């Protein structure tokens, strides 16, 4: 059921306008904060206002301009897009509050918040893109807008990281463009509104090239190994940026792109016939394990988080590549689960860095006593990642395993298990250090993060818990994900 | 450097040698060049343009637009040279290049005749070889020669300062004026009226163009020379 409605267009426009106003605000801190916060709130409200409709199965569409038949800029808020938009606009609100606290006293804050808003604008644009062209438009704009955030410090290290980031993502963008052009040539349309547009008779080599180009193109941002090289380096960015990069903006857009390619460009049926998804699934499995294994060896907190992200993202890719409804549910849900859990961790790490100046795992002894609330939030996120039942991560792993069995690939259940073990192996030492060791310098008393940092942390952690506990409650992300899966597979997903 | 230059020349020569093979023999009256457009000009040129010198007819009438652009090209050359930074200050330049007395004498002697010849070319151009361009070139050559004799300042006095920009622009401006007149009279840009009662107008238009080309061309050539010398 399609309804023409400007809201899918307005959602990215709000952040875009906000960026303009923030730039215009210049050094005036009040207006900068005012615009950032109010735009975040308005946008969240706007996206939420579409939620009831989406749950009823309504799809909001809005065509902006059609250059020629089949090529144009158009927006469409389907269930999956709504899911992603909800995650990103919620987190934008939280991250904005956090960033206002975190960035206090930093130079060039207007530039920072302006591009921050632009990033979110493009992320929502990606979520609501009706066709691959619009998708590509925002995908590339996102690259441009994150660059100033990555190099914000303007140190040689930051500039180098920015260069690497650009090199990777731009080449990825090139592949996306290539795949899009070829897909248009083969299909005559680029719409993402159908379960697959490519005709089966387009020729095996052509289809393989399109698949490879698009997966590589999106895989760069999704940090599928071996395309992940930029991500650990990009850690030089200020922590709110890392949080945003890892949780919603960049990597998630890549993963979102991969799933769009699988469900909407190729379609499940065609991919099952072609068998292209199997190697992708293996690659994802490899990334899950290798990412975790490397994370285990990292002492620098943010780098450990980075490799964890690489690993976690491939859950989404794996879920999509398994081509079964359960796996798809897991993939979509993990978009939210990983986002909230990971952003919690980043917020905490940032808070630790701001409050105590510590950046390494080995320095964290006794931190649990000093920052009890923050570390509690961290622990919740860690438990979620490990996949302890009742936490959000468990839901993902459960459905992913079901999906793997559904697909007749039980080996991936093993991958899940090993990955959980590895997750435990690199998160629990931190928790252990924080709570059960004394700091070398003796007890320094409670020294919690300032409220502007703490409040978002706690909200995010609470949400992680909520996601795990309320799976069956209507209106929560799970139900949205189910609507999305039903559309992709054209069958009602069975709730076990 | 020399090596590849030679190679390039050999390649071009070979190409031209092959190309020349297929060309129509140039002296043959049945060559395409003589039968299509050319034939019509020979047949009806005099009647259509009122000029017995068909080269002039083509230049001023049939392909007058080319000629208009061409006078713009000379004007462009002048603007180009004037726009360049001066090589040195005027004070450094010698008043005139050293010239032998014999040359000076010959130039003085010939100058009036060159002028006369140029004027003859100009006004007899429609019936005999010659016309605006040739006259202009001769005027230009005359300016150059006089410049050698009279020195820069002397030559500069030949064309009054205030009139000079107008004279330099004379050819393009006259062309535009004639084109506009033709537009008004015949409805087409640069059209020459063909009605018998307007023959006098047609001839006046052609003459105006010839004179403008001669004067404008001559002045510009002379100015080019002076600017270069300065």
């Amino acid at each position, binding site marked *: 059921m399609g309804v023409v409605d400007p809201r899918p267009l307005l959602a990215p426009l709000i952040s875009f306008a906000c960026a303009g106003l923030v730039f215009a605000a210049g050094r005036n801190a009040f207006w900068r904060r005012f615009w950032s916060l109010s735009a975040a709130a308005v946008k969240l409200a706007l996206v939420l206002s579409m939620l009831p409709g989406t749950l009823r199965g309504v799809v909001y569409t809005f065509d902006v301009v059609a250059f020629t038949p089949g090529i144009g800029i158009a927006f469409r808020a389907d269930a999956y897009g709504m899911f992603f938009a909800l995650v990103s606009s919620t987190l934008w609100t939280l991250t904005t509050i956090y960033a206002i606290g975190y960035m206090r006293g930093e130079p060039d804050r207007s530039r920072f918040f302006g591009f921050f808003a632009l990033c979110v604008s493009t992320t929502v644009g990606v979520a609501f893109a009706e066709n691959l062209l619009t998708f590509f438009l925002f995908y590339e704009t996102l690259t441009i807008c994150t660059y100033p955030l990555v190099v914000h410090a303007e140190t040689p290290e930051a500039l180098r990281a920015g260069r690497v980031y650009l090199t990777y993502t731009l080449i990825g963008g090139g592949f996306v463009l290539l795949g899009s052009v070829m897909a248009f040539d083969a299909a005559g349309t680029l719409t993402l509104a159908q379960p697959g547009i490519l005709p089966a008779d387009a020729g095996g080599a052509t289809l393989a090239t399109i698949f490879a180009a698009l997966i590589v193109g999106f895989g760069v941002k999704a940090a599928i190994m071996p395309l992940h090289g930029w991500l650990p380096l990009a850690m030089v960015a200020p922590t709110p940026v890392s949080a945003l990069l890892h949780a919603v903006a960049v990597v998630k857009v890549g993963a979102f792109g991969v799933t769009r390619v699988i469900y909407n460009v190729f379609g499940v049926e065609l991919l099952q016939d072609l068998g292209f998804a199997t190697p992708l699934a293996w690659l994802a499995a490899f990334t899950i394990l290798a990412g975790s294994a490397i994370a285990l060896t990292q002492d620098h907190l943010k780098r450990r988080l980075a490799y964890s992200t690489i690993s976690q993202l491939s859950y989404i890719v794996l879920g999509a590549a398994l081509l079964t409804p359960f796996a798809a549910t897991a993939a979509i849900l993990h978009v939210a689960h990983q986002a909230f859990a990971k952003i919690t961790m980043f917020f905490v790490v940032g808070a630790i860095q701001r409050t105590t100046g510590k950046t390494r795992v080995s320095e964290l002894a006794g931190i649990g006593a000093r920052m009890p609330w923050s570390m509690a939030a961290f622990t919740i996120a860690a438990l979620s990642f490990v996949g302890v039942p009742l936490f959000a991560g468990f839901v993902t792993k459960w459905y992913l395993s079901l999906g793997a069995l559904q697909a007749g690939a039980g080996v991936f259940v093993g991958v899940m298990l090993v990955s959980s073990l590895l997750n435990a192996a690199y998160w629990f030492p931190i928790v252990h250090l924080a709570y059960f060791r004394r700091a070398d310098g003796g007890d320094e008393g409670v020294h919690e993060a300032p409220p502007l940092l703490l409040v978002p942390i706690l909200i995010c952690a609470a949400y992680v818990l909520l996601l795990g506990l309320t799976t069956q409650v209507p209106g929560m992300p799970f139900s949205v994900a189910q609507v999305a899966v039903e559309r992709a597979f054209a069958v009602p997903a069975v709730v076990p | *450097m*020399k090596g590849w*230059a*030679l190679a*390039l*020349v050999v390649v*071009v*020569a070979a190409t*031209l*040698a092959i190309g*020349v093979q297929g*060309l129509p*023999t*140039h*002296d*043959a*009256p049945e*060559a395409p*060049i*003589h039968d299509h*457009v*050319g034939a019509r*000009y*020979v047949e009806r*040129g*005099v009647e259509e343009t009122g000029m*017995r*010198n*068909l*080269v002039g*007819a*083509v*230049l001023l009438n049939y*392909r007058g637009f*080319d*000629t208009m652009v*061409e006078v713009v*090209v*000379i004007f*462009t*050359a002048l603007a*180009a*040279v004037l726009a*360049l*930074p001066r*090589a*040195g200050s005027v004070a450094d330049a010698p008043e005139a290049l050293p010239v032998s007395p014999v040359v000076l004498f010959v130039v003085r002697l010939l100058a009036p005749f060159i002028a006369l010849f140029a004027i003859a070319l100009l006004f007899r151009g429609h*019936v*005999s*070889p010659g016309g605006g*361009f040739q006259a202009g070139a001769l005027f230009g050559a005359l300016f150059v020669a006089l410049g050698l004799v009279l020195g820069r300042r002397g030559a500069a006095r030949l064309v009054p300062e205030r009139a000079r920009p107008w004279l330099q622009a004379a050819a393009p401006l006259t062309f535009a004026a004639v084109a506009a007149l033709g537009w008004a009279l015949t409805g087409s840009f640069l059209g020459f009226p063909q009605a018998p009662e307007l023959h006098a107008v047609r001839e006046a238009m052609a003459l105006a163009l010839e004179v403008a080309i001669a004067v404008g*061309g001559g002045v510009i*050539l002379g100015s*080019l020379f002076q*600017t*270069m010398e300065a």
Partner: protein
Amino acid sequence: MAPFGVDLDYVAVAALFCIGLYMLVAKSNLLKKLLGLNVMETSVFAFIVTSGMVEGGDPPLLVAGAQPPFASPIPQAMVLTGIVVVVSVTAVALSLIVQIYAHYGTLEVDELKERP
């Protein structure tokens, strides 16, 4: 003129073209290069004028006593235009050359390439 089936005029024109081209590319002196360019240009003019001629033809002057066949007037008009164009280009080129000499003190290309 075409003894042995070879059109000598065209051959001469092609030869002139090549001589000019050689001067343009092989000579290092800017003025010689410019002379070469002029030789090339005139060779093309010669080609155009020659192509418009006709065996035993008169100039295209339709005065009393003139007999057909006539040489074609179009090539001649083209060349008249062309000559003026070439002299314009030459004048500009010479002005530039004078400037270059005033600044660098040389007209040899290989020396100019070494200067900043």
